[in-house]
Each structure stands twice: as structure tokens, then as C-alpha cells.
């Protein structure tokens, strides 16, 4: 039986909070194929980051399961091999990089923890990884505090690559960057995905970025999966009102793009009136 590379099967996740129980995800099922860039789209409170957390093993689903190449991904005592295979790149790399370590030490630590390569070769490997993400080798000696946002994100990418992962969860990786920097970082992400045959679970609220890079898409609203399919299909003929409303709200920069976007605007007005 051929199994999906990553599959989320009937997952519900509830969190207890002061005000009672919050349903972060409700009965969600998606599959992601090997070497695919799968975009997980939604606004605040959609559950998109909860889904990322479940894939990474930050917590267990309340019910249902997440499988990676057929194996159930649990949270507690996840084997090191799975932690290595599934890496995270988040929005703010400064919170992901220990400010007391140099860039080189942070990358080196990933190699040490997972015992990747021979110990004597790891310094050289750090320099190679920096080169691969477009940073000079002497950045190994710098503190992440002294770097620009784009450079820090490149370091985070180098550290994830150090683990030779199979799947990377990217949680709004370019949302805090200026557009020029964003374009360069997205290009880098696409290039290394190709070179290393990586699979991406790309969490974002930005539909234009999704159109630029994603092969397939899942759209979330308030913890529910409203739509899932190929990026081409969803941008051509979105099936849910919510997806159309998201598309209709995107600020655009050309008349052509406005014509594309405005196809979804009529639907939006109807939906808003129905809501009120």
C-alpha cells in the first residue's frame, strides 16, 4: 500500500483555557505528497499554527492522528530521528536562535546533537551551509543580534538544512521581512527545496506568496478545513466563500491582478451582507 508522505487524519485539538475549552482544530484531514510545497492558509485563530505544532510534536492531538511516511507522530518522547527529519523555520528567527551563541555555534549544535558527519569536519560543514544560504563563512563568528532580519532567516535555514531534513514546517517565514528581502528569501527556499528534495508545510496568511510558491493548498477558518486541493485549482475556482473572501481582500499592484482579484469581489459582498 502506498502511503502519503504526511497525512493528518481526523485531527481534533482542544486546548483548555481560563474561559473553558477552545477548539483549535476540528476533524481536520489533509495529505501532503513528497517534495510538495503545501500551503496552510488562514487568518488569526484559524488553527494553522496549531496544525504546525502537531506536525512538529509540540503537543498531541486530542483525537485523530498525524502520520509521517506511515508512522504516527506523537508528541512526548518523539525519537531524535523524527526530530531531525522534521524541522521548523519560524517567523522571528531571533527567538529561534540563542543570542548567546554565535551563528556558527548554533548551526554546529544541530550537527552535534544529531551526530551528523565526523566531529572534525563539522566546522567545515558549517561554512558550507552558510555558503549554501548565501552568507559569507565569517558569519559563523557573529552574533544573531547583529544581523538583519533576512540574514537571520538565512541562518535559521542553514541550521534546518544542517539536520538534512525531509520535511520543513515554515511558519510565516517571510512575514516580518521587507518585500525585496522576502523575494530573495523565498527564492532561496525554493532553490534548496529543489536541490534537497524537501517537502514544505508552509503556513502563511499571504495568498500572493502562496500563489508564487505553493503546489497545493489547505484553507483554514476557525479551526475547520474549508478547502484543500492543488494551488492551480484553488486560485482558478475556489470552492468556499471564505477562500473567495480572502482572495477578494488582497491588496493588488496591477490592473491585471486587480481583474483577477475582482472576480471574487461579488461573492464577497454577498457573503458580508449575509453575515450582517
Amino acid at each position, binding site marked *: 500500500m502506498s502511503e502519503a508522505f504526511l497525512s493528518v487524519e481526523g485531527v481534533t485539538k482542544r486546548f483548555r483555557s481560563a474561559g473553558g475549552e477552545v477548539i483549535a482544530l476540528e476533524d481536520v484531514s489533509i495529505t501532503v505528497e513528497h517534495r510538495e510545497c503545501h500551503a496552510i492558509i488562514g*487568518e*488569526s485563530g484559524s488553527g494553522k499554527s496549531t496544525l504546525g505544532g502537531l506536525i512538529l510534536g509540540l503537543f498531541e492531538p486530542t483525537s485523530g492522528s498525524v502520520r509521517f511516511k506511515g508512522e504516527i507522530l506523537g508528541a512526548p518522547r518523539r525519537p531524535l530521528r523524527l526530530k531531525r527529519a522534521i524541522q521548523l523555520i519560524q517567523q522571528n528567527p531571533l527567538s529561534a536562535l540563542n543570542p548567546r551563541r554565535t551563528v556558527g555555534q548554533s548551526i554546529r549544535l544541530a550537527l552535534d546533537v544529531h551526530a551528523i558527519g565526523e566531529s572534525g569536519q563539522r566546522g567545515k560543514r558549517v*561554512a558550507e551551509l*552558510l*555558503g549554501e*544560504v*548565501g*552568507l*559569507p*563563512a*565569517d558569519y559563523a563568528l557573529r552574533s544573531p543580534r547583529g*544581523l*538583519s532580519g*533576512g*540574514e537571520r532567516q*538565512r541562518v535559521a535555514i542553514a541550521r534546518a538544512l544542517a539536520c538534512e531534513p525531509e520535511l520543513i514546517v515554515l511558519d510565516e517565514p517571510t512575514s516580518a521581512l*521587507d*518585500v*525585496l*528581502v*522576502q*523575494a*530573495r528569501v*523565498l*527564492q532561496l527556499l*525554493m532553490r534548496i527545496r529543489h536541490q534537497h528534495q524537501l517537502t514544505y508545510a508552509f503556513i502563511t*496568511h*499571504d*495568498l*500572493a*506568496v502562496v*500563489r*508564487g*510558491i505553493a503546489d497545493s493548498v489547505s484553507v483554514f477558518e476557525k479551526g475547520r478545513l474549508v478547502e484543500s486541493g492543488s494551488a492551480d485549482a484553488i*486560485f482558478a475556482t475556489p470552492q468556499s466563500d471564505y477562500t473567495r*473572501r*480572502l*482572495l*477578494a*481582500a*488582497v*491588496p*493588488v*499592484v*496591477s*490592473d*491585471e*491582478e486587480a481583474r*483577477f*482579484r475582482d472576480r471574487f469581489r461579488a461573492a464577497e459582498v454577498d457573503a458580508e451582507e449575509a453575515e450582517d
Partner: protein
Amino acid sequence: MSPASAGAHDELRAVVLAVRSLSVTFRSLAGPVEALRNVTLHVRTGEKIALVGESGSGKSTIARLVLGLLQEERDVAVSGSVRLDSREILGDQSFIREARGDRVSMIFQDAASALNPTFTIGDQFKEVLRRGDPTISNAGALRRARVALADVYLHEPDRVLGSYVFQLSGGMSQRVMIALALINHPDLIVADEPGSSLDVTVQARTLHLMNDLIGRRRTSVLFISHNLGVVREFADRVYVIYRGRIVEHATAAQLFADPRHPYTRALLAAIPRLDQRGIPDLPETIPGFADPLIEHEGCEEPSLASA
């Protein structure tokens, strides 16, 4: 103070804000940092002007100067002129201090942190209204506040007025800030990245609301943003700022149809589009600027020898 002109031609309308040959240099331990060089721009009555640039371009320095929030101290060298309603505000902050909240108001990116967390929304309305009319009574202020909240479609004004900002959603806080910014009928609103911390659907509605209210009152706006998509929907004219210099100035229609400056073109090219797959290549440098397009951002073929 600002006579509303009936003239159809832009040139006949009064200039509310005129910035001339403005240069700003900050002195730091690492040496002088030039934030603005020879910036000239103007905003006429009823115009919506966008100032577009990336982080570090100097756009927020202009906003702070216009609002009198940049103290002219020993570590800042400012030259040129900033005139609000024909009054020079560089060198003498008394006028702008009086005008702020009344003739000039501001809308910030993050309403939750721009509003005072320790006063109710109602108290903040009273304070702002007293800047315009020191004699207004509590009851009179609250009456006007209710009308202003209705204008921004907040349907439970008494609940909102009795709330603290943490009790409101992000979208509601943004609406409150818009209502506060408009309530004294200012001549100029400086809007610094309004709504950019909100979800797209909420941002779109908030901006449409702001656009509608400002348009009806013919308030002038200096709109500061990094988001060209938002600018396209909102602005009449656009100034593009890069590394402290205005590199292009055009009507919004011209700028988006036919961007002239290589930096503007690069910026437009870098924006992901709903109707295009892939991420376009960007130029390495902009003519006239010595440093790479993106400084401190690595490169595709890094030199291993650099120290």
C-alpha cells in the same frame, strides 16, 4: 485655517503640509547616519498622499518630524523646512505641540499599543475633544464620541466607551483610533502603516472605512506604508523613498502603470502576485546608489575571503 478650495485643479488647492529640502542626520557612536537627504514633498487639502518605502528608508522619520515627535537635540541635525498650514514647525515646536490631536492627528499601525491602556476609551475621547474645545462638558464629549463611534460602525458605543483597549479586538481598536483621529476635524492625518498588523479581511474593511470617512470630510492624509498594494487602493499621489531620498513622485495611476525609477520597478517586481507563479529575480544594484539593492542580506555567491 485651511480654506477648502472649490477649485477643480489640484494646483488651486491650499497646501496643508509642505516639506522642503529636508535633511536629517543622526549622530551615533559609529559616526553620522544620514536618515533623509533633501526631501521635498507636499500635501494639499483633501489629498491622500502616500510615502512608500521599506524599513530604514526614512519614511517614519518624516512622520515623526511632521508630528513634532522628533526632538531636535544635539544628536540630530535637521535642515530644511516643514510647514504645516503655512507655519514653520522646525525650530519651534510650540505650534505643533498645540496642533497635535487637533489640527494634526495620527493613526498608527498598532492601535492596541497607541491607545492608552490605563484610561477607558471614553476618557481618551474626552481628552482629545478638550484639545479642540477646552470648554466641552463631559456629557457633550461623550455625545460626540458616540456619534464618532457610530461613524466607524461600532454599534455598542456605551460598551466601547466604558472599555479599556485590552477589552477590544484588534479591528475594534483600529476603528476607535480612526474615530479619535477624525473627531476634531484635523487638517492633516498622518497614518503610519494603518491596519498592517490586522488580518487581511479586517485590514481591507478598516482601510475602506477610513478611506470613506476621510474622503467625505476631505481631510488630507499623509499615508506612510511599505505595502504598495494598499497604497494603490488608497492614494492619489505617491512619493517613493529609498535610503532617505525621494526617488520617484507620481500620481498613483502613473506610478503603478508606468514606474520610472529602477528602485520602484524592483519594489513592484518583488511583490508576490495573485495571478503569477514563481518569484521574480531582482537587480543587484540600483543606478545612482553605490551599495547593493539589499544591504546586509548576503548574496548568492558569497566570497569566502571577506573579512
